[in-house]
């Protein structure tokens, strides 16, 4: 966050564990995350990194076998973690709302989409049937749905994926929340539609002052929308900083490799870059850096022994930029 903005959402030392999984470390293992007002922060990670569990825990919507074991989620001065479910229900939707990957799966197939947008307006805002409908049409128009009066009477299966995601955005914004958590909101959409949805989110940020936590595996979309980026690996934040810095000067070997991977441009030998191995066992690494088994930088710098014996902390490499890597420590300390 950097430029003196007040933090709207502040996550500190968050740990989430699954009860049936005592062997590994917590899926979310002590992460810090700060989102300022009308800021877009991207949480980037691959499958199993813990990014979606993070999203669900901010909403307090974790599955029954997962539990927040430590840490706080402070929204505008109030910690959401100890909040009773009844209070949390008032926060959810009205102050913090969520957008999911599969918009069509989230809509009730048996009800008209307009009714689904109107329902929370009637329940939470106490609007009359007519007023809720009017507001619904307005919301649908606002997210770029053509002929909103007609589309409000459509069923989910009659909408394209992009239209369904627009309806979900209207739904999420109906309670005028301050924070929107968007978990892979465009992954199920085509590229030409993806660009439209991202533009809509950006517009909502500037028009409504909305803060957005964008959760994604795709660095490509991050560069198009985010102000700041946090990269997650095996339950840990391994690097965070301003989006431009992360793209131009990534410091963690994982971020560096991920950026090269996502371009899919062949090297001189005609092959494309990939990171050897997989992240499958990384959460079971008890000692040392969790990325070590896949890291080439440790070998190149001859610091593998350090990396294997002790896990690095997030080491500052700029005023608002930090990376969890011994190589960074080595380069930063002598200066």
């Amino acid at each position: 966050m950097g430029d003196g903005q007040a933090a709207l959402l502040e996550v500190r030392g968050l740990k989430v564990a699954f009860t049936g999984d005592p062997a590994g470390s917590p899926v979310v293992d002590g992460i810090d995350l700060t989102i300022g007002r009308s800021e877009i922060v991207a949480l980037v990670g691959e499958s199993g990194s813990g990014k979606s569990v993070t999203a669900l825990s901010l909403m307090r919507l974790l599955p029954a076998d997962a539990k927040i074991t430590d840490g706080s989620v402070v929204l505008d001065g109030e910690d959401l973690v100890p909040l009773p479910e009844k209070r949390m229900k008032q926060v959810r939707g009205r102050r913090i709302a969520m957008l999911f990957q599969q918009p069509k799966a989230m809509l009730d197939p048996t009800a008209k989409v307009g009714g689904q947008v109107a329902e929370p307006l009637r329940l939470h805002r106490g609007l009359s049937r007519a007023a809720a409908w009017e507001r619904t049409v307005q919301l649908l128009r606002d997210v770029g749905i053509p002929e909103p009066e007609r589309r409000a009477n459509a069923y989910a299966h009659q909408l394209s994926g992009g239209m369904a995601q627009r309806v979900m955005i209207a739904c999420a914004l109906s309670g005028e929340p301050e924070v929107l958590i968007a978990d892979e909101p465009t992954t199920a959409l085509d590229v030409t539609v993806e660009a439209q949805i991202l533009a809509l989110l950006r517009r909502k940020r500037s028009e409504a002052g909305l803060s957005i936590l964008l959760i994604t595996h795709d660095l490509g979309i991050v560069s198009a929308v985010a102000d700041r980026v946090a990269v997650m690996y095996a339950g840990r934040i391994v690097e965070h900083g301003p989006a431009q810095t992360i793209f131009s000067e990534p410091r963690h070997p994982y971020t560096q490799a991920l950026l090269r991977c996502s371009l899919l441009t062949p090297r001189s030998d005609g092959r494309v870059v990939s990171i050897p191995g997989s992240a499958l066992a990384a959460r079971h690494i008890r000692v040392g850096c969790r990325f070590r088994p896949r890291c080439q930088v440790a070998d190149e710098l001859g610091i593998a022994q350090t990396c294997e014996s002790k896990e690095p902390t997030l080491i500052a490499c700029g005023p608002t930029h930090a990376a969890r890597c011994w190589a960074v420590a080595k380069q930063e300390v002598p200066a």
Partner: protein
Amino acid sequence: MTTTETRAGREPLVVLDDVSKHYPVRGGLLQSKDRVRSVDGVSLAIRPGEVLGLVGESGCGKSTLARLILHLVPLTGGRILFDGREISGLNRRDLKGLRREMQIVFQDPFAALDPRMPIGTSVEVPLGQHGVGSREERRSKVVELLEQVGLDDSLVDRLPRKCSGGQLQRVVIARALALGPRFLVCDEPTSALDASVRGQILNLLVELKERLGLTMLIISHDLRVVRYMSDRVAVMYLGQIVELADKDELFDRPLHPYTQALMAAAVPEEASAPAPARIKGEPPSPIRPPAGCRFHPRCPRAQANCQREAPPLEEVRPGHWVSCHYWDQETLDQDTTT
């Protein structure tokens, strides 16, 4: 229109001749006569040893096209030749023989493998079905196949849930190669995988292609994948091929407005860069595709006649085919004069 085959002297391995697949629309109170025109008049030829990329958005018919080639779904119209033989008329036995020649790698390796079946057994199944070797021979063949895709024999007894996505996709590829096919279709082979392992699988496919002399059809919505893998690329929109050219030609000089829009949308833009001119809206329904050119409602170049006349797929440069009344002549002129 098998004339898309222009240069190669050799006979194409796979020929699609005006191929169509229409699905009836079911449901509703009234018996609907609507049909989903999933694939609508596609002609293509795939040369031996070639990798043809097929790119398009969801619902454009690219996966249906793959299933038609493999004879997993019957044709509505047209014909498909494999190595000169028409495949739709084959009897059961010949079809089984054909299955040894052509195989498919699907998108989601978690769904493509039986969760209760150990990896080794999954790879062995096709060998058993086709009566290859004795039980012992099949077992050693399985180990050999796993080694070929970069996996060691410790995986033989492992269940899929104990493996990573990248490992499972290697297993799926090993199984597809078990019977020694000449032609491999890969339908979104890396879409279900993490970015860090995607390159491993693509590199493996390229190595296998070179080592085994495979002919391949790579289907993807991801232009980067198609660009890396393919010799030639076909762009599909609402059931039809709208552009076809050599890979470099297509990426350097996209001439169809849809191809241009796809490329503009796919390039990760700088946060500060001005947004490129994008196409509006979403692909219309393939149930009632727009009259004339199917792309006209979204097309920035559309004129009045585009609403009435469907443009033919024409060769505008050697090997470069475009289906558009107003394809980008300027791009072509600029590039050919400089």
